[in-house]
């Protein structure tokens, strides 16, 4: 064709286009503002309305917070200092922080819970971060006994005797395993029970008379504040996860008896409010126990809270198990892995990873639920806030106490939540 007005198909570039910066409206903060805050008339209205709400809240709370009185002996003194102006009276925290943290724990022994807390961080670190040396896990295993002794005190030989029960179980397991695998499991359970029932008591008294070591005994009713929240929360969290795993596996089991026990347990616990279980722990349990046995109230509460969380945990983990493709079980079977090895190496690492958000939910819920113990007379932070208000000096103070308690709970729960996000990122290997 000879039509010269048609554009030619052939094209050769004789000069390459250099890189250029994007137009002003399409980069940096302006682009972000345009896309996120002012992308349309509706968004613009919402943005302006939100700004107004934020401004209004800050204007209302800000002066109150900024105009804080830190040093005063009572609410009345605070008001005198403020002289009619609006302002917070955080002097109450300054005056009573030790009670909010430790309850009525003897002042000269405050170093014990503080040391326990520091050691807890040391014990948790190798559990939470796999990059740390594995040998440190030995300390983590010993920590519960150290923590018990530091907090409650009494004879050093009591927690040592309790720990020896586990050693007895392990030794029995190793010895009997050479004979029979199933018998070894029975031996591993029976040996420590036998030790605790008949040997631990004499061991404690004999060793105490030979070498009386130990810290001053502190009764449970002196415990209070965040000390009690952390003791119940941390123990409950670390016991409810393994118990929940076992319950979830039991519920999936082919053994009818085992399965029904697990199902009944889970459904019963989930069907009952925690507060009922706590009342059972504080009131009813004494009727069922043989007369004369005194069973520590904090211990009873820990058991109930743990069982409660374990039932929820079991269902969360069951969800993770259900999400695993059947092929994973089959591949593990086909390679000749037995049930426990398959669970430990193949199934649980994946099921737990899937369940992380649910597990963390349960953990945070458990930690916050520890405040319910106020109803059975334990002095957790909320209980103490009532006790502090009962003092005529601080009668009528609410916000400052609750802000302080809320902030402390937030620090712990936010920490747990952040850690779980870190863990999820670290375990993300499926590249979906």
């Amino acid at each position, binding site marked *: 064709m000879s039509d010269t007005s048609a554009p030619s198909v052939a094209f050769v570039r004789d000069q390459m286009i250099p890189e250029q910066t994007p137009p002003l409206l399409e980069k940096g903060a302006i682009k972000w503002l345009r896309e996120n805050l002012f992308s349309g008339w509706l968004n613009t209205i919402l943005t302006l309305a939100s700004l107004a709400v934020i401004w209004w809240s800050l204007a209302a709370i800000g002066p109150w917070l900024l105009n804080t009185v830190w040093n005063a002996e009572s609410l009345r003194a605070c008001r005198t200092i403020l002289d009619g102006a609006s302002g917070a009276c955080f002097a109450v925290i300054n005056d009573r922080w030790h009670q909010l943290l430790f309850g009525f724990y003897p002042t000269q022994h405050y170093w014990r819970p503080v040391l326990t807390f520091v050691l807890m961080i040391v014990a948790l670190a190798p559990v939470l971060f796999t990059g740390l040396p594995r040998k440190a896990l030995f300390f983590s295993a010993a920590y519960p006994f150290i923590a018990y002794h530091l907090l409650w005190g009494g004879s050093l030989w009591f927690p040592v005797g309790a720990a020896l029960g586990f050693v007895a179980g392990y030794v029995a397991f190793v010895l009997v395993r050479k004979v029979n695998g199933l018998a070894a499991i029975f031996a591993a359970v029976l040996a420590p029970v036998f030790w605790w029932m008949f040997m631990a008591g004499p061991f404690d008294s004999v060793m105490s008379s030979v070498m009386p070591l130990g810290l001053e005994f502190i009764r449970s009713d002196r415990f209070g504040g965040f000390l009690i929240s952390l003791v119940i929360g941390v123990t409950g969290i670390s016991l409810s996860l393994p118990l929940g795993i076992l319950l979830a596996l039991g519920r999936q089991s082919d053994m009818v008896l085992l399965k029904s026990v697990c199902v009944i347990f889970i459904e019963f616990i989930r069907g009952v409010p925690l507060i009922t279980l706590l009342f059972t722990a504080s009131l009813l349990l004494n009727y069922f126990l043989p007369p004369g046995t005194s069973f520590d109230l904090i211990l009873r509460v820990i058991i109930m809270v743990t069982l409660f969380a374990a039932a929820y945990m079991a269902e969360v983990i069951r969800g993770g198990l259900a999400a695993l*493709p059947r092929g*994973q079980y089959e591949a593990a*079977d*086909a390679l000749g892995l*037995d049930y426990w090895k398959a669970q430990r*190496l193949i199934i649980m*690492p994946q099921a737990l990873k899937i369940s992380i958000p649910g597990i963390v939910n349960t953990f945070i819920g458990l930690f916050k639920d520890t405040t319910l113990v106020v109803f059975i007379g334990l002095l957790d932070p909320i209980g103490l806030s009532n006790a502090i208000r009962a003092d005529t000096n601080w009668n009528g103070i609410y916000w400052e106490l609750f802000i302080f308690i809320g902030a402390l709970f937030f620090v712990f729960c936010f920490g747990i939540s952040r850690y779980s996000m870190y863990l999820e990122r670290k375990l993300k290997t*499926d590249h*979906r």
Partner: protein
Amino acid sequence: MTKPAIELPVEREINTSQMKVSDEVAIQITGMNKWFGTFHVLRDIDITVNRGERIVVCGPSGSGKSTLIRCINRLEEHQSGQIIVDGTELTSDLKNIDKVRSEVGMVFQHFNLFPHLSILENCTLAPIWVRKTPRKEAEEIAMHFLEKVKIPEQALKYPGQLSGGQQQRVAIARSLCMKPRIMLFDEPTSALDPEMIKEVLDTMIALAEEGMTMICVTHEMGFAQAVANRVIFMDQGQIVEQNEPREFFNNPKSERTQLFLSQILGH
């Protein structure tokens, strides 16, 4: 009517020097029946597999061929009859089951690699935990077999980063690391793109050339003709016809087989 050509999608000469069928029995199945609920899925199965045999099992979907090979390592339980693998009878005895499973390798349609473990860890897991091989030795074995399936450079990646064909070759290597005496393949190429089918078949052929006892459920008729010494055709839970591949493809006896072959090859 001219018979359509059955072609092996892999261009290579097959070295048959090591492919020898011995007199020793590897798997003996006699009068085996299996039901799923009330559905009679396997009916009176009798198969004897000698060491070194390469058997292809084919048939329409739902014919019970996958269930059959899954019975051989007890991923499925049979309700009557007898299965003896390598001299061990499969009963509910867990010890026997674990023994058979560690001797029999299995490759699945959907690979079933462990996504939370690296390729190397996938391969060393069973040798370390079942065979109690020291880690270092297990890693050497794993690298040896990963080289054999031609992906040693992927050892430190995770399954999710590999293509389907590569994943299936890892799955084969993972089974081989247990040094199995028998390999079962459950439709190993059915979930793969055509290009990847080649690389997996190539690996399977190499395995056959070394004299491995293999039972493959597959629709790759080219592979069956080139590598198998026996083809078993199943329908409605029973063995309808079995023969050596040339006879099976060129001269099928049963009407059902003829129909199946014309459907699978007829275009």
